[in-house]
């Protein structure tokens, strides 16, 4: 049995510039952020990124690593518009294949099933057809004769996903309410890398959790990374919530300043920098609260 554990930097060392990279999660939910941070530390660029986009897309866009993006959206959920993605689009920084959420899903299914495409009732009549002139339609061969979009397979060279638990062989488990599409990303990629909150013994996986929590099978996984808090600042239920305060900081800080403070060192450096920021932030919040309280008392006294 192959032990597939590795570090985030070892994962990234297996990638090359120009590859197509799938990224699991959804919006600002369970994104493989520790792996994204490792990618940002590397020189890898010119990527085709396939993602239900969140800050993964925002950071890669801000750092100029994307040649082409395939996505139905990019959002931070509680902050509807991803600011770095937005800025990059407005300066025409990369090519975009903008498809609908369902088209995207069927593209993953097609890739996972080694099909060239799957028919989907979505896109027709919308400008998704105008902005993707390469999209083709297909007519039902049965008597209904309906026309569908033939959504091409979203095959990827590599995929990154973040899960709650995994064993050393690559069996990955989600413990939150939504699997998102992480199993499909792994099946649709030539090589998939799973980061997780904690690596456990195989027997441990189903000791307390139901078997259907075993989302990702080791036969689809090339590497496993233990990355506690590795989805930070996105959510990773039930291990951690989205760090809303830090996400706000990410969204409101100029990228060079953010990258300099949080992304110039290792993953441990990142987690320490976030901790230091949190202490400062809480202090200033408390300070602000005290000031507001004093002001209120003064006002009431007057």
């Amino acid at each position, binding site marked *: 049995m192959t032990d597939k554990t590795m570090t985030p930097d070892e994962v990234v060392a297996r990638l090359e510039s120009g590859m197509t990279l799938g990224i699991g999660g*959804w919006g600002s939910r369970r994104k493989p952020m520790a792996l994204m941070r490792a990618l940002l530390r590397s020189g890898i660029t010119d990527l085709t990124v396939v993602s239900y*986009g969140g800050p993964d897309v925002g950071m890669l866009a801000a750092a100029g690593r994307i040649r082409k993006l395939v*996505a*139905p*959206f*990019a*959002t931070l959920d509680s902050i*509807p*518009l991803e600011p770095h*993605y*937005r800025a990059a*689009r*407005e*300066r*025409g920084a990369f090519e975009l294949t*903008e*498809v*609908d*959420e*369902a*088209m995207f*899903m069927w593209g993953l299914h097609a890739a996972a099933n080694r099909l060239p495409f799957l028919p*989907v*009732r*979505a*896109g*027709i*009549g*919308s*400008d*998704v057809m*105008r*902005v993707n002139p390469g999209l083709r339609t297909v007519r039902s061969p049965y008597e*209904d*004769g*309906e*026309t*569908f979009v033939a959504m091409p397979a979203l095959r990827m060279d590599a995929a990154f996903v973040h899960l709650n638990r995994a064993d050393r062989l690559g069996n990955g488990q989600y413990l*939150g*309410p*939504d*699997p*998102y*599409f992480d199993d499909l990303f792994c099946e649709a990629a030539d090589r998939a890398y799973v980061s997780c909150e904690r690596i456990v013994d195989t027997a441990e996986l189903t000791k307390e959790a139901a078997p259907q929590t075993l989302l990702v099978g080791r036969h689809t996984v090339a590497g496993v990374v233990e990355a506690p808090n590795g989805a930070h600042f996105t959510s990773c239920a039930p291990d951690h919530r989205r760090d809303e305060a830090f996400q706000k900081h990410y969204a409101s800080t100029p990228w060079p300043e953010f990258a300099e403070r949080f992304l110039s060192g290792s993953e441990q450096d990142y987690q320490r920098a976030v901790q230091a920021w949190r202490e400062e932030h809480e202090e200033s919040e408390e300070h602000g609260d005290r000031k507001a309280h004093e002001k209120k008392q003064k006002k009431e006294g007057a």
Partner: protein
Amino acid sequence: MTAVTRAEYCVIACAEAWRGAGEILASPMGLIPSVGARLARLTFAPDLLLTDGEAMLVRPDGTPEGWLPYRRHLTLVTGGRRHVMMGASQIDRYGNQNISCVGDWARPRRQLLGVRGAPVNTLNNPTSYWIPRHSRRVFVEKVDMVCGVGYDRVAEHPGTGRFHRIPRVVSDLGVFDFATPDRSMRLASLHPGVTVEQVRDATGFGLTVPEDLPRTREPSTEELRLIREVLDPKGTREREVPDPASTGGVGRGTGQGAGR
């Protein structure tokens, strides 16, 4: 009980979208549609399904009753057992909707969310829209990027469009539908306190206005109690749509030209 606010008429107008819908998912986007969906569920549409905004189907008190992760949600969309009320950054006379970007798509002046699920929604389940600030910036002659498909576009694809339906558009000024011969937008009811001129001024295309124009209906005493005490006790609806009576005068949405 104090006077009914504009936001509360909007809640009623949104809730009415789900009247008679049966055992389907109500998917409201935005605060007032959410209050409306839950109001419908608690009163005249008790079979509606609601989500917690994540992956669970929940009763109005939050008790989970089912599992609806994104992959199953998308199947529910294509299966048609859902009526979604989406937002719109732009909407035109035939109900084409845009939430992707403003300006040229290749290099937008303003990048917005992206098409999201609007293309699949509009071809598969009833899709209504909620627009909290009715203006010429939103109600435009032509949208910059068609995300949600309107009646003129779908007419070109009759087979693919067999499940297409836009039951209503609710704004802070009134309720609109497409019950006209060419399926263009019609004013279906005015919220109390709003004039037809106000709506025309704030709309960037010609609207059909029926002679017998109804007012959006009054909430019942019980509905008002549910809205104020149970569903939105903090009154956040009043921030989404401020009441013209309490903000001192001319309703926002009037006299605001396209250049705002």
